[in-house]
């Protein structure tokens, strides 16, 4: 399933300054029972967002109308734990196109890149600056510029560059995914397969 192209996203951001946010928090296992990819955004951070009786937990950031936007900013080691791609789907389906953190778990990062959510890894110092800027002014806009590989706090103009390999960058800019690439080289793969002993 190809996804929307990603170029420059300028938006306010939702801060979640908690470390080690695992994918069980992003979407609990009991909401993984669908056989289609739809509606996962409703259960994003389900148990942090809702009480057991399905009423909202007022103090959780997603329930605070002051904060919104296409960018989610999380603490260190974001997306650890289970490999469930549903976590990335939930982030995307809720409306985020970009997750910013100072450190990402491997599988979550890969899953995001495969579905069109851009993981932006920044220095711990820059992450702190983003949290402070949003804390001071929740309307602070953040610009994530994929062609330039920069992230900028618009109010202060402070900026940092981020890494992404050129293959994945091209994919994101054009809305291509790995399956598009792999199906094009299928005959090369089939030839390789004949060399495998088991």
């Amino acid at each position, binding site marked *: *399933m190809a996804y929307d192209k990603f170029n420059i996203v300028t938006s306010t951001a939702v801060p979640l*300054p*908690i*470390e*080690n946010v*695992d994918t*069980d*928090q992003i979407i*609990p*296992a*009991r909401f*993984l*029972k*669908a*056989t*289609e*990819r739809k509606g996962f955004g409703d259960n994003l951070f389900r*148990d942090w967002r809702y009480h*057991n009786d399905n009423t909202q937990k007022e103090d959780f950031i997603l329930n605070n109308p002051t904060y919104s936007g296409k960018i989610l900013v999380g*603490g*260190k*080691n974001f997306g*650890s*734990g*289970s*490999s*469930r*791609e*549903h976590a*990335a789907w939930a982030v995307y389906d809720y409306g985020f196109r970009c997750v910013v953190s100072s*450190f*990402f*778990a*491997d*599988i979550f990062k*890969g*899953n995001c890149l*495969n*579905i069109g959510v851009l993981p932006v890894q920044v220095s711990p110092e820059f992450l702190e600056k983003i949290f402070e800027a949003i804390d001071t002014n929740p309307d602070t806009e953040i610009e994530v510029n994929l062609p330039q590989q920069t992230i900028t706090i618009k109010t202060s103009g402070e900026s940092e560059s981020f890494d992404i*390999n*050129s*293959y*994945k960058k091209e994919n994101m800019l054009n809305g291509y*995914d*790995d*399956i598009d*690439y*792999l*199906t094009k*080289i*299928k005959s*090369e*793969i*089939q030839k*390789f*397969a004949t060399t*495998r*002993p*088991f």
Partner: protein
Amino acid sequence: MSKTLFDKVWDSHVVRNIENGPDVFFIDRHFIHEVTSPVAFLGIKSRGNTVLYPDRTFATADHNTPTINQHLPVEDPLSANQLKALEENAAEWGISHWGLGHQKNGIVHVVGPENGITLPGATIVCGDSHTSTHGAFGAIAFGIGTSEVEMVLSTQCIMQPKPKKMRINVNGELGFGVTPKDVALYIISQLSTSGATGYFVEYAGDVFSNMTMEGRMTVCNLSIEMGARGGMIAPDEKTFEYIKGRPLTPKGEAWDTAMEYWQTLKTDEDAVFDKELTFNGADIEPMITYGTNPGMGIGITNHIPDASNVEGGVATYKKSLGYMDFNEGDAMIGKPVDYVFLGSCTNGRIEDFRAFASIIKGKKKAENITAWLVPGSHEVEELIKEEGILDIITQAGFTLREPGCSACLAMNADKIPAGKLAVSTSNRNFEGRQGPGSRTLLASPLVAAATAVTGVVTDPRTLLEEVIN
């Protein structure tokens, strides 16, 4: 050039290398289950693709299955729907399917090795992060997302940058009552849950050489909990003995040819790792976790550390202890427990049930404890009966359930109720992992057993001594 074990297996599976990009990486064996595969099959259809090598994929139902009355229809309609989707997708594409009720059904990471699907030198993936289990056999095995499940189904490849390499040595001998689970929890407590992110780990040293295959599977299983993509151990005589003659291992001449290759699967003496860590087996105690990630573990006789002595954010640490309803400085031993869970892809094998039985034999389940004992597969279940473990369990007032992932992730009805405290042999103590509001202490089958008969967190060494004396 000298190569590590990981290099040897990885490099032999690279179909194509993309400059400034990932490797096109060939997958020998692919496991699928009901939760992370349905959307991948939808993707195949919507793109007009096919399953390229159906005989390289193996389906089993485990995450969502009930662990009692498996002969009856599954009550939860959503779960039943996922099981049906797996069955139909497997049938449509000619994929082997060990569904609920099948004699070979069980947890994917238990039935794979049991049936000889897991082989040294192979590349193995599954839409499940504990796929790292299979690294115990000298395979490169790791968890993938659903987009990648679709890639493997339709092209037998995924696109991955080659991870960095880490070797973790544990030398010397393990103390009395210290199990492979404790070794893994100890390493994770030293590295934290992100200490090995970006790396693929090779475990080496006396402790792993002396470990059984079941123990090695437990250790490799937990590699992901320190952030590693996977972990592996060089195959040796124990490995070959374990796999020989299993239903899907090579036979006859094919076995001899494979053996020649497998004997070469070890790290060259002068090969270089990006990072190397060494621990002493004698320093490891029976472990228990006290927080909401697997890195928050301590020796069972220790007290919960003060926030000031812990690396990382104080706010996150306090949030975690707040969720657990614990305080800095609390002793773990003696904490009253409500539930004990023995099972999962981490500790649901026969050796784990033997360990559990060694403690509870001749004792009685504590009245305040609800215990769920869940074998990893029907094969494990059969061995439990054959070896007389079922009798020990029954006489002590426990019952045995049917195979599945069960309370490890609580997708089925096996949910620890909100606020209740569980000692679990599984792999994750995240908030709500075992049910909304549940509180989990990760530990070995020995600690679980000791706790199950006393009703409070108990050092198994105190009970083992009784057995020995």
